[in-house]
């Protein structure tokens, strides 16, 4: 145990402390600035941590373990590995971008809004760095509570019902996971702490990996965990909460939900599901992949017929997440590596999409495709940004999403040609709904609703510029992302095979 502060701690405590302080700030301007500054601080910490990835030299910077509830074999054990790092980085980038791009939105009770946003960031970071199952569960739930309040307080008309559905869904899922965690815990070996405390069982990740579970136990425990993660992602047929929630939430919260929060489910699969139950994974991988593929095609078809832009993006997100989940369950190097990169790229792209949608909604007050048209004439710069992000969203070569999707499809192809073909339809469908949306909203005659549109402001340009730069740079040069996650992919694959 080092006496200095470590990266995972910075990731968790900066946003949480900043969030608590934010509640006490007065006025409208200061919470905004405070939120931007503290999220930039987190970003700085995350970027710095990239220089200390070598665990042989810098293990003490990346891992820390405090005693907490050690009588039952738990501790406050947080650490950064490849998966945690890439998602931590995504979270760290996402929040300042969100804050800056939605700066113009006004919220009643500004300090509470930004305070809750920062608390959400802390919760998300905690999920990505937790190395103890109970700690993971704590953060898993804690990330949810502020989001619940954010959506219910600042959302659209039907926000209360929509968010409540979302809350009950995920809460039920996570309770099932809690039972699973307790069951695995009962089958873990003894844990001896440095100070001599002995607990009969342990919540540590390593003990979970070594839990002695029979094949039969693994088979049903797998589903207890999977349901929780599947609800969060969401995977068909657990997705019904999502379009309504995305539609009703304030857009900056939707960005958090779709850009980062859904990654919690995928992260859970990578960290806690497949490695802990490798046997059950091999048993059920086809079933899960088929569920994912049904979801991909179903969601893509629904996206095509949507008139509401927010719902369109929501359904497209279900399709993308479904593909990542399927790729993880291929458990081959290509698929998993692709999914890892895509975790990051998808977060960036979807936030970009939402930024554009948010600007449109704020300026015109409508979110129906049929009421919009000709925005390009009014806002050429916005249109350029949108087209780039939309093309990245459908994974055109030279954009960041292409690398990930290509790897994922190769992975699926290795498992079963038909899976790859079925999932591949989604690319065509994605092109259909995305291009249709661009065409109707941005080109054609200027509709009455679009008359008021003006081009974007400097802060919005800055946010979108960052996103577009990331889209291109990582599209041309995906190597850094692959390097970052290579080790994590290998350890992941080693636990399965």
């Amino acid at each position, binding site marked *: 145990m080092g006496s200095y502060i470590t990266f995972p701690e910075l990731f968790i405590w900066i946003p949480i402390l900043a969030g608590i302080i934010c509640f006490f700030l007065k006025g409208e301007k200061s919470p905004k600035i405070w939120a931007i500054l503290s999220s930039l601080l987190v970003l700085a910490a995350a970027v710095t941590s990239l220089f200390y990835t070598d665990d042989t030299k810098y293990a003490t910077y990346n891992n820390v373990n405090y005693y907490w509830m050690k009588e039952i074999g738990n501790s406050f054990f947080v650490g950064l590995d490849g998966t945690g790092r890439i998602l931590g980085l995504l979270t760290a980038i996402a929040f300042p971008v969100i804050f800056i791009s939605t700066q113009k939105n006004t919220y009643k009770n500004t300090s509470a809004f930004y305070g809750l946003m920062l608390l959400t960031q802390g919760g998300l970071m905690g999920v990505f760095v937790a190395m103890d199952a109970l700690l993971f569960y704590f953060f898993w739930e804690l990330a949810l509570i502020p989001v619940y309040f954010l959506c219910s307080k600042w959302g659209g008309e039907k926000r209360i019902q929509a968010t409540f559905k979302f809350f009950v869904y995920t*809460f039920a899922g996570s309770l*099932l996971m809690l039972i699973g965690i307790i069951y695995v815990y009962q089958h873990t070996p003894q844990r001896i702490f440095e100070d001599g405390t002995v607990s009969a069982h342990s919540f540590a990740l390593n003990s979970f990996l070594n839990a002695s579970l029979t094949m039969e136990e693994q088979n049903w425990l797998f589903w207890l965990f999977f349901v929780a993660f599947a609800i969060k992602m969401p995977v068909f047929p657990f997705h019904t909460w999502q379009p309504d929630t995305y539609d009703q939430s304030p857009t900056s919260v939707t960005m958090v939900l779709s850009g980062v929060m859904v990654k919690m489910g995928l992260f859970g699969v990578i960290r806690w599901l497949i490695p802990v139950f490798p046997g059950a994974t091999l048993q059920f991988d086809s079933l899960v992949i088929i569920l994912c593929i049904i979801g991909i095609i179903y969601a893509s078809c629904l996206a095509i017929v949507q008139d509401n832009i927010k719902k369109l993006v929501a359904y497209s997100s279900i399709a993308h997440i479904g593909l990542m989940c399927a790729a993880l369950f291929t458990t081959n190097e290509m698929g998993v590596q692709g999914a890892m990169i895509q975790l990051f790229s998808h977060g960036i792209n979807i936030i970009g999409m939402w930024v554009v949608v948010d600007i449109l909604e704020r300026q015109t007050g409508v979110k129906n495709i049929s009421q919009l048209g000709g925005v390009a004439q009014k806002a050429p710069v916005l249109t350029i940004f949108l087209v780039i992000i939309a093309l990245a969203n459908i994974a055109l070569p030279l954009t960041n999403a292409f690398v990930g999707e290509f790897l994922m499809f190769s992975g699926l192809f290795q498992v079963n040609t038909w899976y790859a073909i079925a999932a591949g339809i989604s690319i065509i469908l994605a092109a259909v709904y995305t291009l249709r949306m661009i065409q109707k909203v941005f080109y054609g005659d200027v509709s009455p609703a679009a008359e008021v549109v003006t081009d974007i402001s400097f802060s919005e340009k800055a946010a979108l510029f960052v996103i577009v730069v990331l889209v291109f740079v990582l599209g041309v040069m995906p190597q850094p992302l692959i390097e970052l996650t290579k080790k994590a992919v290998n350890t992941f694959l080693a636990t399965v095979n």
Partner: protein
Amino acid sequence: MNAIIFSAAWGIVMMFSAVFIKSKTAPKWIAITGMALLFIVNALELNSGVPLFFFNAQDMLRVNSFNLTFLAIVFGCTLQYFLLSARDVEKVGEHVGEYFALIFFVLCGVALAATYNTLLLLFLGIEIISIPLYILTGSDKRNLKSNEASLKYLLMGAFSTGIMLMGIAFIYGGNPNASFFINSINLGNGELPVMIAVGLVLLLVSMSFKVSAAPFHFWTPDVYDGAPTVFTSFMSTIVKVAAFFAFVRLFENAFGKVHDQWQTLIVIITFATLLVGNITAVFQQSVKRMLAYSSIAQAGFMLLALFALNDKAKEGLILYSAAYSLATIGLFAILIKMNDYTIEGFNGLAKQHPVLGLTATIFLLSLTGIPLTAGFQSKFYMLMASVQNGQSFWLVIAAVVFAAISAYYYFRVIQAIYFKTADTEVIAKTDISPAFNVLLIISAGLIILLGVYPEILVQWLYH
């Protein structure tokens, strides 16, 4: 032993104070002082193990760290209850001193029911708890609902007491050495003697009555709804967990060795209680009635301690008693201040009274079982105990499904508090003092503290 003597003595002090002191606010302060002293003398005994007042009970009472910890929770929560709600006790009627005296007598019964070692003292403890409650329930004399509740409670209580006595008689009769001691009951070899088995079932039924476990819960909603709200708060928390504690001690010490023979009954009762409590609570419009059903639902979770019956279950029971009582007493204290007891009555509370809104939300989150609150830790310990038990795993799954359902009715109140706007300009009474707010914040702080460090309670079990 401290607690038994001190609570009875202070009850008498309270009675006389009502006669001699005419001031209307004095009894409140005497009661609070007495409660603080009661808490301290009990804590002293827990800490040192040596009682201040000692009498030779011929082993009819067993004092150990487990029941002293429990009593510390009970007295601590009653102190919280007095501090938050004593002013509302004054408003119930004329006889303020007597109300407090009755509460002290109930606590004497609680102390007996927590330390008994013979069936007779169990009976005595349960009766000393029940009889003052019949009076308190009917203390709003001009209110028909209060009268009805009192009568109903009395009849049901008498009925279940009869069953309990019958059970005790059967067990006494079935014992060759004719003893009332709970740990010397003849459980036979492999198969329970018929008399004992009948006695066991009768005791199970009567105790289920007392803790309002389904299908013996029918009295609960009406009694809790009809009683003056301040006393509902006391009955549904402290009295309930005390009955639970007696229940668990009885079945652990007397029949723990034949756990597998009666476990199925507990499984059925637990499931029924969870089902009835949670499903019915969903449809309630009045927060008071919703809390009555939620108390049944929470009882279902506490019954898991009887289902599991291991060390973790004991720790869970201790945590559950504290978490549930702290949150429910706080919630009732806020409810009393509201003008309208329906869920709509809470609309916009956060705007008009931010402290009340925030603390009520923390209490509700704790009752739901959200991490970082005591409610989560207690549910978590109960679930750990039940999983460790290894049998009837479906019951554990059912329990968490019902916990998810409970989020529905607790969050309806949170929604009203934060996301809806008030229908009227003034939704709460005007006598909300700064001290009341501070006490609520302390209660909420305790809930969070227990949620982060459950050890501070659990460690006393092994003191």
